[in-house]
C-alpha cells in the first residue's frame, strides 16, 4: 500500500482518470480550479479529452454531448457554476445518460466567497433543475474517501443511467491528506448500445432526447425515473458511524462538518459523555431508515452543518418527530471549531433536550450572540 500526500482537488481528478474517465470539460472557479488544471495536462498526456469550456453552461452541455456519445465524462465546479448547470443537469436527467459532477462548495449566496461551506445542499439535494428527478449525491469527508467515491461514481452513474454528484466543500478541495490511489482502469473501448456514436451501418439509429411532447409519454419517463430512484434508495445508502454502539445521543453531520463533529465527539467521550456520530455519506438518497431506526435508541439528534440547517430537514423528516432534534451550524464559509460543537454537546448532556419551537429558531438566537461576541 502506497499512500501519498494529495491535494483534494488533484486527488479527485486522478481518481476519475483511474476510473476510466474519457472526457473532461470544465471552467475555472475557486476553490475547484486545481482539478481543472490537473486535468489540463493529465488527460492530454493519456490521449484523452480535456477541454476548458467557455463557461459552465458550455461545460455541462459538452458533458451532456459526451455522455450521449457514450463516454465516461465529468465536470467539476463550485457553487455559482453549479447554479449555471441546473438546466443542463435537468436535461441530462431527462435523457437518462450517466455523468459525474463534483461541486466544491463555497460560501454563498451570490458571489459570496471561496471559503468552505455546505450551502449548496438545498440546491443539489432538495432542489436541482426543473422537473421531477433526483441525482445521487455523495459527500465524502476525507481525501481518501473522496478518491474511493469518485472512483466508483462512473459505475454507479452507468448502472442507473443517472447523474452522480460528489459534493465536497472548499476545505476538502484545498487540503492535503495521504491517500492510496486505486489502480488504473482500462478506458472502455466499445460504445454503449444506447449511445449516439453513429450507426456505422450496423444498427438502428439512436435518438437521445428529453422532450416528450405528449404528457403521457413524459409521465412514463417520470415514472421510470422514479422507479430507478426507488432502486437507488434501496441500494446506494452510505454512512459511517462512530462511537454509536453505546451512545445515548448522536451528532449527525456530513462532509467537513462531520469531521469537525468527530473531533468534538472524541473530546466529549474523553469527558465521559455517551455521544456518538452518525455521518451520512450518501446525502441523496438520505439514510432515512437508519435515522428512523436510531430514534428507538437515542435521546436525541444533534445536527451539525456548515449551512443554515439544510440536512436538518432531512433528519427531521426521517425521525418523524419521535425524538428531539437540535441544530448547530455556521454559514457563509465559516468552519466551526470542534470546541463549538463540544460546548453544545456538553450543554445537551447537562441540560437535556427541550423541544419547544424549531431547532433552527433556537440556533439562530444563539448564533446571533456568538457572532456578536466573536
Amino acid at each position, binding site marked *: 500500500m502506497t499512500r501519498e500526500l494529495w491535494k483534494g482537488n488533484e486527488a479527485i481528478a486522478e481518481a476519475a482518470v483511474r476510473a476510466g474517465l474519457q472526457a473532461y470539460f470544465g471552467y475555472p472557479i475557486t476553490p475547484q480550479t486545481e482539478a481543472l488544471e490537473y486535468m489540463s495536462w493529465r488527460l492530454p498526456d493519456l490521449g484523452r479529452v480535456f*477541454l476548458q*469550456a*467557455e463557461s459552465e453552461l458550455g*461545460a455541462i452541455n*459538452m*458533458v451532456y454531448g459526451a455522455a450521449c*456519445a457514450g463516454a465516461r465524462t465529468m465536470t467539476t465546479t463550485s457553487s455559482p457554476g453549479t447554479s449555471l448547470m441546473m438546466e443542463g443537469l435537468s436535461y441530462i436527467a431527462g435523457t437518462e445518460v450517466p455523468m459525474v459532477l463534483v461541486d466544491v462548495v463555497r460560501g454563498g449566496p451570490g458571489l459570496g466567497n471561496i471559503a468552505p461551506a455546505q450551502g449548496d445542499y438545498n440546491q443539489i439535494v432538495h432542489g436541482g433543475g426543473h422537473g421531477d428527478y433526483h441525482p445521487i449525491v455523495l459527500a465524502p469527508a476525507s481525501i481518501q474517501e473522496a478518491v474511493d467515491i469518485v472512483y466508483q461514481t462512473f459505475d454507479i452513474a452507468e448502472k442507473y443511467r443517472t447523474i452522480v454528484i460528489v459534493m465536497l466543500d472548499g476545505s476538502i478541495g484545498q487540503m492535503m491528506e495521504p491517500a492510496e490511489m486505486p489502480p488504473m482502469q482500462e478506458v472502455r473501448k466499445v460504445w454503449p448500445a444506447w449511445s449516439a456514436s453513429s450507426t456505422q*451501418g450496423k444498427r438502428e439509429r439512436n435518438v*437521445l*432526447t428529453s422532450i416528450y411532447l405528449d404528457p403521457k409519454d413524459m409521465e412514463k419517463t417520470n415514472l421510470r425515473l422514479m422507479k430507478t430512484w426507488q432502486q437507488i434508495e434501496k441500494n446506494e445508502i452510505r454512512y459511517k458511524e462512530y462511537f454509536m454502539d453505546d451512545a445515548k445521543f448522536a451528532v449527525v453531520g456530513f462532509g467537513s462538518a462531520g469531521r469537525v463533529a468527530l473531533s468534538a465527539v472524541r473530546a466529549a467521550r474523553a469527558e465521559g459523555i455517551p455521544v456518538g456520530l452518525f455521518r451520512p455519506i450518501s446525502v441523496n438518497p438520505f439514510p432515512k431508515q437508519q435515522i428512523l431506526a436510531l430514534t428507538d435508541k437515542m435521546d436525541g439528534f444533534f445536527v451539525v452543518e456548515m449551512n443554515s440547517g439544510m440536512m436538518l430537514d432531512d433528519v427531521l423528516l426521517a425521525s418523524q418527530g419521535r425524538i428531539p432534534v437540535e441544530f448547530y451550524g455556521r454559514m457563509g464559509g465559516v468552519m466551526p471549531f470542534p470546541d463549538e460543537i463540544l460546548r453544545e454537546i456538553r450543554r445537551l448532556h447537562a441540560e437535556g433536550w427541550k423541544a419547544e419551537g424549531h431547532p433552527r429558531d433556537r440556533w439562530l438566537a444563539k448564533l446571533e450572540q456568538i457572532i456578536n461576541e466573536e
Partner: protein
Amino acid sequence: MATTNFENMQVIYQHPESLLDKNTHYCPGCTHGVAHRLVAEVLDEMNLRDKTIGVASVGCSVFAYNYFDFDFVEAPHGRAPAMATGVKRVHPDKIVLTYQGDGDLISIGTGEITHAAARGENITVIFINNANYGMTGGQMAPTTLPGQKTTSSPKGRDVEQAGYPIRTSEMLATLDGAGYIVRRSLHDPKHIRQAKKAIRMAFETQVRGLGFSMVELLSTCPTNWHLSPVEATHWLEENMLPFYPLDDFKVHPALKNLNF
C-alpha cells in the same frame, strides 16, 4: 394525360435515403423542410450517413431527429454547439452537425456558437435564419429586420429600443477558427441549388478537418409572417436579401479549388 411508361425513364430525383419517409410537423411551405432535404442529399452523396451524429436544437426543428435517419441528440436551447463539441471530441472520426434556428443560435446560444467557431471545432452548423422565433409563435429574434412586426415587436422592430439585427455570418467570420462560413437562401430553385453546394462544402470542410463550418440559410416562416408559402418566398427575397447579403464570408484556402 397519357400514362407514363416508366421503363424508359430514369429517376432524376427521389426522396433521399438519409431522410426518413415521414410526415414532418412543419407548416406547409416552410423551408425548414428544404434545408432538411438538402442536408440529407449531401450526406447521401458523400456517403456519410452511417458515421453521422446530429444535434437538434430547440425551435421548430426540435424534432429534426424524427426525420433524419442517423444518430441524433437533442440539445437545450442554444447549447447545440457545446453538445456537438462534446460529441465530436469523443468521436473525432465521426461527422457531427448541428441544426439550429436563429433564436437558438444567435440569441440564447451566442456564447456557444461563438466559441465553437473560435475553437475551430470541427463540426458543421446548419443555421436557419427565418427572422423570428417560429416555434414559440413568432416573437422577435436577433435577426428580425428593422420595422418588422412580430408578436413581441407589435409595432415593428424599433432599433432604438430593441437594437439592431445581427449579421451572424459576418460576425463569426472574424474568428480565426472558422473554416467555412457562407450565407445562402432557400427562396427559389436557383438559390436552393447554391445552398446545397454550400452545404456540401461545409461537410467537406469537416471531412478535411479544416475547422468550423457553417451555412446560414435564409428561410421562410409562412405561418408567423402571416403569408402564404409562395408570398413568403417573395417577402424573403424583397426584405431579407438586401439586409443579409448572400456571400462567402470565410473560405479556408484548402477549399478554394473544390467544385461540385
